[in-house]
């Protein structure tokens, strides 16, 4: 029986030394094939006496199982190393750059308008719009700015060659004409905001011939200055994401509101850097007031019954303040490098549920 043990050892050794699936198959046929060595040994059992056969049979069975087990195991390992070899060949430089995928950016003006809309939308305002080319009536007269009123001179108006009702048409100098159009075409309660392009005949480092404003108008039977204050304080704090942002209301003058207030927010300037929030300085950011009864009447609304407030602010200005964009003129330059830097991700849709103020 020592022969069988020795045989087993020698076969196992041979299996382990085999390096290819073909060699392994050859070995299997030689040992376990139809006329293989072990097969033949098992065949020869028939010639033995029963008692011997029983013992030898058991041993041969063990031998056969060990050998076929070892071959199977070897087969797996050869297969594995073949796969590994192949994978090794497939190795690539994973540090190479991937396929380029360009995603564009959203302009700060659009983003800021969306932010403003999302905040006022939460307060029940809806967006209204009007034309950029306006009649004198809508841009001035209906808003209580008659011809030769000193306030007109502060508007640096662009005039068009075209005339309407004997007056030159203008590029709207503010979004306020949409107040008039809305009041003429609907009846209170009114609660609108009006983002849009506006134009003034002025061009230097802090003025652009075209810029954007957002206008707000509330008209109903009871809205008063305390609501104006509440609404605009909420807005400023939400927009700049500063819960206790100081907000100051300062008497001022606009022909279309009475009383009128300019709104300042607190800020500080340290080493030339402006920071919105607490500090010893105030920064003017918007104009507001109770709608002048004359304007209501001009728009066909009974000023004895209805009242409300209006406000307006520069989109670029609040965008510059919030995002630290230094130069107004760069907004319109379409410099791709600038837009990549100051622009916004397109999936960054402002909402009050998420972060309207990012």
């Amino acid at each position, binding site marked *: 029986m020592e022969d069988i043990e020795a045989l087993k050892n020698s076969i196992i050794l041979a299996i382990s030394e085999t390096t290819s699936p073909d060699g392994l198959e050859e070995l299997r046929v030689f040992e376990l094939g139809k006329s293989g060595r072990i097969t033949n040994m098992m065949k020869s059992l028939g010639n033995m006496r029963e008692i011997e056969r029983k013992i030898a049979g058991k041993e041969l069975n063990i031998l056969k199982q060990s050998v076929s087990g070892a071959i199977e195991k070897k087969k797996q390992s050869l297969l594995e190393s073949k796969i590994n070899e192949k994978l090794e060949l497939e190795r690539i430089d994973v540090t190479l750059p991937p396929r380029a995928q360009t*995603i*564009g950016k959203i302009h700060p003006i659009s983003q800021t308008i969306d932010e403003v*809309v999302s905040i006022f939308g939460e*307060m029940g305002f809806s967006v209204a719009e009007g034309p*950029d080319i306006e009649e004198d009536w809508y841009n001035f007269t209906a808003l209580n700015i008659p011809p030769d009123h000193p306030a007109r*001179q502060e508007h640096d108006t662009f005039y068009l060659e075209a005339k309407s009702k004997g007056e030159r048409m203008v590029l709207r100098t503010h979004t306020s004409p949409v107040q008039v159009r809305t009041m003429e075409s609907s009846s209170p309660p009114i609660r609108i905001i009006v983002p849009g392009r506006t134009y003034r005949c002025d061009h230097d480092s802090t003025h652009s011939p075209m810029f954007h404003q957002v206008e707000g108008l509330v008209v109903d039977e009871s809205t008063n200055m*305390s609501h104006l204050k509440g609404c605009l304080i909420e807005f400023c704090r939400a927009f700049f994401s500063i819960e206790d942002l100081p907000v100051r209301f300062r*008497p001022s003058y606009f022909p279309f509101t009475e009383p009128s207030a*300019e709104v300042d927010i607190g800020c500080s300037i340290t080493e030339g850097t402006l920071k919105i929030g607490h500090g010893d300085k105030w920064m003017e950011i918007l104009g507001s007031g109770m709608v002048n009864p004359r304007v209501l009447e001009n728009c066909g609304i009974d000023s004895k019954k209805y009242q409300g407030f209006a406000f307006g602010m520069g989109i670029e200005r609040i965008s510059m303040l919030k995002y630290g964009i230094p130069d107004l003129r760069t907004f319109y330059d379409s410099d791709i490098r600038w837009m990549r830097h100051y622009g916004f991700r397109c*999936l960054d849709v402002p909402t009050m549920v998420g972060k309207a103020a990012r």
Partner: protein
Amino acid sequence: MKFTHSWLMDHLETDSTSEEIANTLTKIGLEIENVTNPGDFIKEFIVVSVDKVSKHPNADRLKICLVNNGEENYEVVCGAPNAREGIKGVLAREGQFIPGLDLKLKKSEIRGVVSNGMLLSEKELGISDEHEGIVELSGNFALGSSAANALGLSDIVYEIAITPNRGDCLGIRGVARDLAAAGIGTLKPLDVKPVKPSTGSPIAVNIDFDEEDKSACPYFVGRYFRNVNNGESPDWLKRRLLSVGLRPISVLVDITNYFTFTFGRPLHVFDADKVSGNIVVRLSKKGENLLALDGKNYDLDDEMTVIADEKRPEALAGVMGGELSGCTSDTKNVFLEAAYFDPIRTAITGRKLNLQSDARFRFERGIDPLFQRPGAELASQMILDLCGGQASDLIVAGNPPSIGKKNFLREDRVKKLGGVDIPSEKIESILLKLGFEPTKSRDGWNCITPSWRHDIEGEADLVEEVLRIYGFDKIPTNQLDFGNILPTPAVNTSQERRSFVRRFLALRGLTEAVTFSFLSEELASMFGGGKTDLKLVNPISSDLSIMRPNVVANLLSALGRNSDRGQGNGALFEVGPQFQGTAPSDQSIVASGVRIGKINEHSWLEESRNIDIFDVKADLLETLTAIEININNLSISRDTPSYYHPGRSGSIKMGPKNIVGFFGEIHPSILSNMGFRSRAVAFELFLDNIPLPKTGKGFTKEFLELSPYQAVERDFAFTVDIDRDSDQIVSAIRAVDKKLIKEVLVFDLFVDGTIGKNKKSIGIRVQLQPLEATFSDKEIDDISQKIVDSIREKVGGELRK
């Protein structure tokens, strides 16, 4: 407007600090822009006496002055010719900053003599250009005390912004009145005593207007002075004018400026000896002109108010006096004018002549129409005090314009509009202090508008007056009434769509630009615009002189600028307005995009290629799909505007007429005109032309029926004439069986001589979807045959063998 603290204190009795005054000014709507103390930067310098002057041993022109600060003596080297014993001067010591020299004084030795400081000139002090000698202080100033004080430079200067409605605060007295109303002291009474005449006037005044122009100058008050002396103004007057930025000229001129700033009452003084005959206030005549005090000659039309003599206009009323009748140092006899001129006419005159002045600024905002006589009396007294001479009676023409507007303020209106409870007595006292003469009745006050308040038009103005003086900060804050907790949508469907398109295009790789609504006429006409109506009358430059007919032109220019900065590949879009005319309906919102350059230009992975028309066609169709437009219902034709390449552009329509977009290559000649060397492609999506989804349908989507049977795909290759559009083949195939044919896709295009002259081969994959049972071979063959037949009939194409 600027004024000094001491000047304000002429009219206000208060012990409030300058800080309290500044804060209150902003609080009541007279916004502080600046508070400066001109003495701040010279406050370290002190008054010294020069006790002894000796010659410098080593320099002819230098002296050694022994100065005394009240406690000690110093030796100071000085070169000023007026340095002499007995005068008082201003001393700077080592380490102090000399503003006029812009340096810190160091201890120095001048030609072997140590100088322990420096006696300063006005130039060195930084208060004037005077550098002839050192400052000589006249007055009994304590040695060692502040030189700023001795020089009268410790007067704080306030600068405030005045809104256009507050003409009354363009005079310091008006500011004082507002401050007093707000609790800063009391307004000092104005003591106006009529000047006793001691001579007659050789000049009479006549107001001469047609009835309809009478408002131009309803009232004129003047006075003749004999034998005045028009020298330099006294120091206090010069100092005040200088501190608010006015240059002292001569005492008569200075007095008029002083009244402009003190009372908002511009005056004019004529040299009476240069006036021919009597004075008449009238409209100018076309062809007349006036050499004004600014040295310029102005051509007048027939609508300007002038003060004329018998020969010519001598002054533009309310705007500027004339040079020829102006006062000089030789002037002996003068005529003072204090009249009321119509604000609108004054404004128009000033604007027409492009002539700004302190007088115009006040007249066009409206001066106090009842202050002619008091103003003239006060100015007369000042002239007599400072120039001597004898005054005539007041020479008066016309009558003061009628004022006395009345408004009723309902007591509950303050609360209703202002949202704050203010005690009735407080309301009344504010109105009283502002000059409204309120008379209480059962539910409010009758208020007479003071003559100086042109801005008060109604009850709301009175509410504002009360609130601004009471303090906006005392108004509580309240939230708007919501009705519902959840807000309704802020944007409508088309606004929402615009915003969606914007973000979708950015996701597709285009960056958003915001370009001007105007461009150059040259560019506009290249891009199909140039209508005269849309031209600006007053553009800021010719590059921005006409409203844009489309956005493509601006985006292309922007890409050109980027290319000049080394960004040759680019994709920009803008969602904004374009203008076909001036009516609101001529303005439409368009999503436009331009791409230029190469894709994969530096890729190790993929082959580089030029951007082409199919990139922008994809932008357009993908965007339409993204806003849920079925692009299978759109048609494409070749009728595009002339700025596109005629053979490489398409127009996308919904139905036969409604154009929803253009796409294509920009016309090569336009590109070369604009300096581009590569091609550029563009698309335009007319958002306003795309119908909105029907409202009221609810949100339920159509029921989706998924077939359990496998779809079958068949490929065909057709040979067609080379100028056949693939679209025709696709439509012909679709028309064969609208139910079974699910998809038709062009997957191959092949042009080669072997196919035949002027022929091309188009490979098409057709997907067939069985509805009731799996297709049999025969069914597939039948439908395939129908497709082949249809192409032969409708398009003249043959199945390629």
